[in-house]
């Protein structure tokens, strides 16, 4: 690489106007032993950048394993709500339908009502017959006076 060219690149390097490719040329130039004496003072600058870029970290990173599966929670909440819905529904429906004892009692009530009705009908018949007896006794009194 021509000295002139390098000097020009250096100048624009310090102005912040070099491209990445230009800067690579500079780094490469200063990494060789052929650096011109007038530019020797800059070689440590460019070599420092190269050295710095080769530094590596020695720590290893491990991913923490305490990961919870979100699926499980989602599934559980659905199951729980189904149980609650079923419970409430069962309660509501069981209130509407009667127990066996109640049904028996209702049937007995109906039967006894019918029995009473029958009895009262017969009683009514009996009293209408009694009316006949009353008429008979009225006519008998007419004659016997």
């Amino acid at each position, binding site marked *: 690489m021509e000295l002139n060219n390098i000097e020009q690149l250096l100048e624009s*390097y*310090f*102005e*912040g*106007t070099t491209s*990445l490719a230009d*800067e*690579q040329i500079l780094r490469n130039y200063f*990494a060789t032993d052929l650096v011109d004496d007038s530019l020797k*003072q*800059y*070689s*440590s*600058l460019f*070599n*420092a*950048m190269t*050295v*710095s*870029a*080769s*530094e*590596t*970290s*020695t*720590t290893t*990173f491990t*991913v*923490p394993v305490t990961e919870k599966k979100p699926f499980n929670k989602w599934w559980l909440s659905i199951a729980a709500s189904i149980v609650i819905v079923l419970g409430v529904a069962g309660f509501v429906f069981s209130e509407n339908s009667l127990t066996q004892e109640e049904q028996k009692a209702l049937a007995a009530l109906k039967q006894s009502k019918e029995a009473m009705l029958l009895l009262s009908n017969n009683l009514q018949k009996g009293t209408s017959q009694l009316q006949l007896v009353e008429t008979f006794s009225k006519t008998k009194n007419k004659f016997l006076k």
Partner: protein
Amino acid sequence: MKQQEFLETVLPIKDKLFRIAKRLLVSRDEADDAVQEVFLKLWKGKEKIKQYRSAEAFAITMTKNYCLDRLKSKQASNLKIVHSNYEASNNLEKQLEAADGVARVFEIMDTLPEQQKLILHLRDVEQLDFSEIAKMLDLNETAVRVTLSRARKKVRDQLIKQNNYGIK
């Protein structure tokens, strides 16, 4: 995002994040802690990573913010970060020759203001585009260029000053 997928996205940029953290925090241990912390944050918010166009830019911004916070709290509690790791950069033979000069450059870089330090690092070490740097730091490209130029000149001036001091 599964564990495997996450590690594949994030592990390749581990060293990059480490270097940025070390540039800002100076200490190697602090930088390791910072990377660990940033990874943990990334893992917790891993679903969000997909929303960002570049996971790398996102992670770098996060690292920068974390380190600056760290520095702030250090200053507040009046603690100075102890560092003793200029020799830590290893094993290229070339480095040994220039080691002295290189260490001096690092020392000078440490004295720069945070923003200059960071931009100089992102550009000259990580070799990122101006547009990328601008986005990461929430600046415009011109501001990045100006700051970069200022940082480079400052390092140069310091270097020359020290060199002359040795000679004269």
